[in-house]
């Protein structure tokens, strides 16, 4: 397909690998590898799928970041969604990945197996269509995602308001990319040398949420596309900045992203949502102003109002579960004692094993097979 195949050209990849090795060889020698964090789960998936980590020289490694909205979803949100799906005449809709995330009492798919109303949709507009077709039911859309995904939910809510749809509601857990990055950078134990910025978040936000990284922490950022050529070019651009001891935000994904981002999409977000005082993140805890909630004019669409009990149940997590450490870049997935044993994609114990963009699922899918084949 156009804009996909040519960015997977093996010859180009080969040239880039050589150039990366040459640039890495010019970096000042040090005992630990240079760590580049890919912020986005889409990048994590591509890195494993194409084996890009194996193409890097030994002195450079990828660290998987917190940019998978499914992985950072706290159990309490899933529990609320499950509670809503169990109401009479209610249909809870969300993305395929979200319905598989385990809550304290199971996932939305588990709830559906027990008779609750749960439906997988491609996007919020499909949920809206369900609401139109089923006027007697409450259709609740569980909205998760970063700035990339927020515009679609905003547009659906604008349409619902225009049409006066009274049976469409949104359980909103949309999050922002800057706060978790700030939290990671302020962690003194974490040593990240550069960041591969999330190209699809930038389609909406532009480069602004990443400006603080070079300005306040003197680390380079390259906003990257998602194909092998994109990611390797971005690695090369980061190494070039490190070589020249520079730290700025560069744009590799120029065919789609821009410094300014998409103003129309941001205007829709600003009209429909407002920053929530604090939002809970799996692995990172509650971060102030890190999520979005419905603005006052849209509160009538807030599904949280349908909940009888809104106090989140304290999560009982298995003490052996390594999700928090993996999410914050402190631990590699296979080091988790549950990895591949009690926690697998077929029966995930943690959210990082649910989405194909979760670091654990990516390791399991693309590295477990190699391990098994060698046995």
């Amino acid at each position, binding site marked *: 397909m156009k804009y996909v195949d040519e960015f997977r050209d093996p010859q180009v990849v080969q040239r880039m690998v050589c150039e990366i090795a040459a640039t890495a060889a010019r970096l000042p020698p040090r005992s630990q590898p240079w760590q580049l964090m890919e912020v986005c789960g889409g990048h994590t998936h591509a890195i494993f799928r194409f084996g890009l980590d194996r193409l890097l020289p030994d002195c450079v490694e990828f660290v998987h970041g917190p940019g998978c909205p499914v992985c950072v979803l706290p159990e309490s949100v899933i529990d609320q969604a499950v509670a809503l799906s169990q109401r009479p005449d209610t249909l809870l809709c969300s993305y395929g990945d979200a319905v598989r995330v385990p809550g304290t009492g199971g996932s939305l798919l588990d709830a559906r197996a027990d008779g609750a109303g749960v439906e997988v949709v491609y996007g919020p507009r499909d949920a809206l269509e369900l609401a139109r077709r089923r006027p007697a039911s409450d259709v609740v859309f569980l909205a*998760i995602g970063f700035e990339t995904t927020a515009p679609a939910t905003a547009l659906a809510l604008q349409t619902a308001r225009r049409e006066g749809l009274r049976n469409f509601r949104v359980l909103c857990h949309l999050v922002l990319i800057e706060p978790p990055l700030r939290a990671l950078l302020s962690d003194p134990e974490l040593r990240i040398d550069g960041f591969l910025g999330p190209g699809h978040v930038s389609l909406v936000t532009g480069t602004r949420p990443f400006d603080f990284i070079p300005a306040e922490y003197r680390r380079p950022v390259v906003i990257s596309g998602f194909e092998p050529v994109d990611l390797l070019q971005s690695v090369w651009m980061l190494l070039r900045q490190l070589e020249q001891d520079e730290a700025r935000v560069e744009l590799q994904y120029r065919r789609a992203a821009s410094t300014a981002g998409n103003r129309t999409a941001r205007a829709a977000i600003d009209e429909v949502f407002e920053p929530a005082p604090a939002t809970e993140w799996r692995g990172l805890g509650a971060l102030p102003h890190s999520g979005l909630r419905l603005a006052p004019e849209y509160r009538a669409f807030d599904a949280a109002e349908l909940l009888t009990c809104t106090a989140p149940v304290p999560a009982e997590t298995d003490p052996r579960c390594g999700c928090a450490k993996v999410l914050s870049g402190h631990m590699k997935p296979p080091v988790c004692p549950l990895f591949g044993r009690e926690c697998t994609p077929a029966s995930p114990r943690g959210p990082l094993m649910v989405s194909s963009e979760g670091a654990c699922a990516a390791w399991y899918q693309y590295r477990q097979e190699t391990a098994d084949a060698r046995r």
Partner: protein
Amino acid sequence: MCLAVPALVISVTDPSRALALSDSGGIRREIDLSCVLGEGPPEMLVGRWVLVHVGVALALISDEEARASLALWAELDDGERQ
């Protein structure tokens, strides 16, 4: 989950709501063009490639930029790149 895929705008299905039919590797879907409209009517985007995420086009793809980024690696010999 935050993946956006390239899709070709085939035809406008509902001009008042900026909805259009798109094709992405053989998969046809109705998408919302309202975030990439600019000044003109949605019909002007027929034949353009866009990046689509959960049913909404978030950016137009620039063919010029795509070619420039590949040309950087296709044409130069190792060591010549600056």
